[in-house]
């Protein structure tokens, strides 16, 4: 498949601070590509540059043949943007919102009216279209927020953390919508800090941290970088000292890495079963009580931990 987006050494600086440090990647037509990374990694800044909102400090990107620096208006014609925060007029109804945004995309008349009907159907709000958005639940507002980005049938849809702060049911609906859109041929650039969302949706994943793209590939390709390792998660009480346990465990045979996130110690190991007894003994020796433990096979979380030495956290 040809690339619809080619990012070349994109840089964004704010004074002395570099938010995005020369990232490069491409997205093929028809795929879902996820940018996975913790908060503050540079995902939103990257999307803001790609959607022509920010001028890159250096580098460029080409979307559907148009440079974001030279032809921003042409780029805007082919992209749709679903921002992280709701960007709707709450005093307007869902239909009025869609009408307004459709006109901003250059649509009008009967084609716009029929497209609005399609989008309302797609986001499941046909019956509530005449209600003001301010009367909607958080999940319904999220669906309208997505609907706005779909109005002009963009070839490339940017979705910036669209599931932040919503209930599991609405989250499920949004993930299903993304899959359905992709099935209809829409290319999606999806940013998230939820590893499981990236794992479920993506054909390929780019892992971003501190403004750098530190890994890129399919899930299989990325987990292979970690090797045949397990992640052993030890959940300890709030009164315990996780750093002390983490330090003690790093010296055990078979422990490749140990990291702390809140009151959980994450251990990377070739075989969790083989080190389990020794880990529990070390905790007892330190007087630290383990409340529960999980064993996870290689995943994107483990990849991030492997690459950064830190857990992928909110």
């Amino acid at each position, binding site marked *: 498949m040809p690339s619809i987006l080619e990012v070349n050494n994109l840089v964004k600086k704010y004074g002395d601070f570099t938010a995005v440090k020369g990232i490069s990647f491409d997205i093929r037509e028809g795929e879902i590509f996820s940018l996975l990374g913790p908060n503050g990694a540079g995902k939103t800044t990257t999307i803001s540059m790609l959607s022509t909102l920010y001028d890159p400090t250096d580098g460029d990107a080409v979307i559907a043949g148009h440079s974001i620096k030279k032809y921003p208006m042409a780029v805007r014609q082919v992209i749709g*943007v679903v921002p992280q925060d*709701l*960007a*709707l007029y709450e005093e307007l109804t869902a239909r*009025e919102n869609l009408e307004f945004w459709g*006109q*901003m*995309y*250059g649509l009008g008349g009967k084609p716009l009216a029929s497209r609005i009907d399609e989008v309302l159907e797609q986001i499941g709000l046909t019956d509530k279209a005449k209600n003001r958005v301010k009367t909607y639940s958080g999940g319904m507002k999220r669906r309208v927020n997505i609907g706005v980005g779909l109005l002009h049938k963009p070839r490339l849809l940017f979705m910036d953390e669209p599931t932040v702060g919503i209930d599991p049911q609405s989250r499920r609906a949004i993930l299903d919508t993304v899959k359905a859109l992709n099935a209809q041929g829409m290319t999606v650039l999806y940013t998230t800090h939820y590893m499981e969302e990236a794992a479920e949706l993506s054909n390929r994943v780019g892992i971003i941290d501190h403004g750098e793209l530190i890994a890129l590939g399919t899930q299989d390709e990325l987990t292979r970088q970690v090797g045949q390792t397990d992640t052993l998660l030890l959940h300890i009480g709030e009164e315990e000292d996780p750093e002390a346990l983490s330090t003690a465990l790093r010296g055990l045979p078979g422990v490749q890495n140990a990291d702390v996130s809140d009151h959980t110690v994450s251990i990377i190991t070739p075989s969790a079963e083989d080190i389990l007894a020794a880990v529990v003994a070390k905790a007892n020796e330190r007087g630290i009580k383990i409340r529960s433990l999980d064993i996870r096979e290689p995943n994107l979380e483990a990849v991030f931990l492997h690459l950064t030495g830190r857990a992928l956290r909110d």
Partner: protein
Amino acid sequence: MRKILAIIIKDAIMRFSGFSELLFFIILPIIFTFLLAGGTPSGDEDARIRLLVVDEAQTALSAQIVSELAASSAVRPEVVSRADAEEQFSQRRASSIFIIPAGLDTASLQEGTAAVDFRQQPNNLNASIAQRAIQTALRRVSSAVSAANTAVSQREEAMPFASDAEKAAYFDQSLELARELQEDTPQRVTVIRAATPDQVEYDPRANSSAGQLITWVFIPLFGISELFAYERATGTLRRLLTTPTRKATYLLGTISGQVLMAIVQMLLLVGFGILVMKLAWGRDPLALAVMLVCSALAAAAIGSAMGAFVKTSGQANGLSIMLGMVMALMGGCWYPIELFPPAIQTFVKVLPTTWAMQGMLDLVLRGGGLVDILPEAGVLLGFAAVFFAVGVWRFRYE
């Protein structure tokens, strides 16, 4: 063009999504215009200031003074007893009282011993106007007496009177003639008014109509800043600029929409002034249109510039109301600017409300036309150019 129209319609729907906006758009402005005009429902009624007159002299001269006051365009004399006048004055139901004491007659006037009594409530505009009207009436009466005295002197030099009775009769005839001539000389009054540099030009209905129009239109136009802050806070402005829409389109749509709504609001208030208050707003429709558009553009430009600096909607809202009220007060929209000290009168020329108010008064009060309002319109357009430039230069979407 379609995008600009879409922005205008969106803003109109948002602005009028609740009843409260109608309250501020038309209901309150009309109520305040009506109240500050003295509750005058139409121009057919006597809009002059009520002046309580106590005539204890009961002479031909005192009757002449009351008659001159009745002919005044500023006050409406109401002859009452001293007790009644003092009671109303002490209860602050009368802004001033004018007492013509016993003994005031032509002889006392000729002898220079005549004196009258005028009492006024402190800091009261109506009382100040009444005082001027009384001074004018006294001047007219005494000038007739003075003319009669001159006639008697000249006659006596040419041909001495045979008796005092003949002299008195000649004086009465001369006085009557002087009064008749005075009645037929309205042009002289005009000349005197033009020569008075600090006269207070005031018609409660005209001033109220123009002043309230400016007050209630400028404040929402300053509120363009709130619109910008709201769109930044909700992220809609940021989103808008990821669509194929230019910043210029957004600014043009937003500002022109608010200006259009302001012009509709002003036309409604002008219509109220013409139909209900019988004001002469429609003498020169072109001049009126120029003033309305220039005023709206100046206010919208200030709102746009403010929008570049405010951080939140609440901040913008508070600032718009505060600036709007202060500018309206200082610009003469609530009180005639001529009542301010000279230094303040000079200072307030930096305010667009001052120029808007003067331009409006040129039209509705002074009967001016397009040529007369060109200076005010030019200054307002200058305000618009400067503040639009600042607003566009410092425009930000987050």
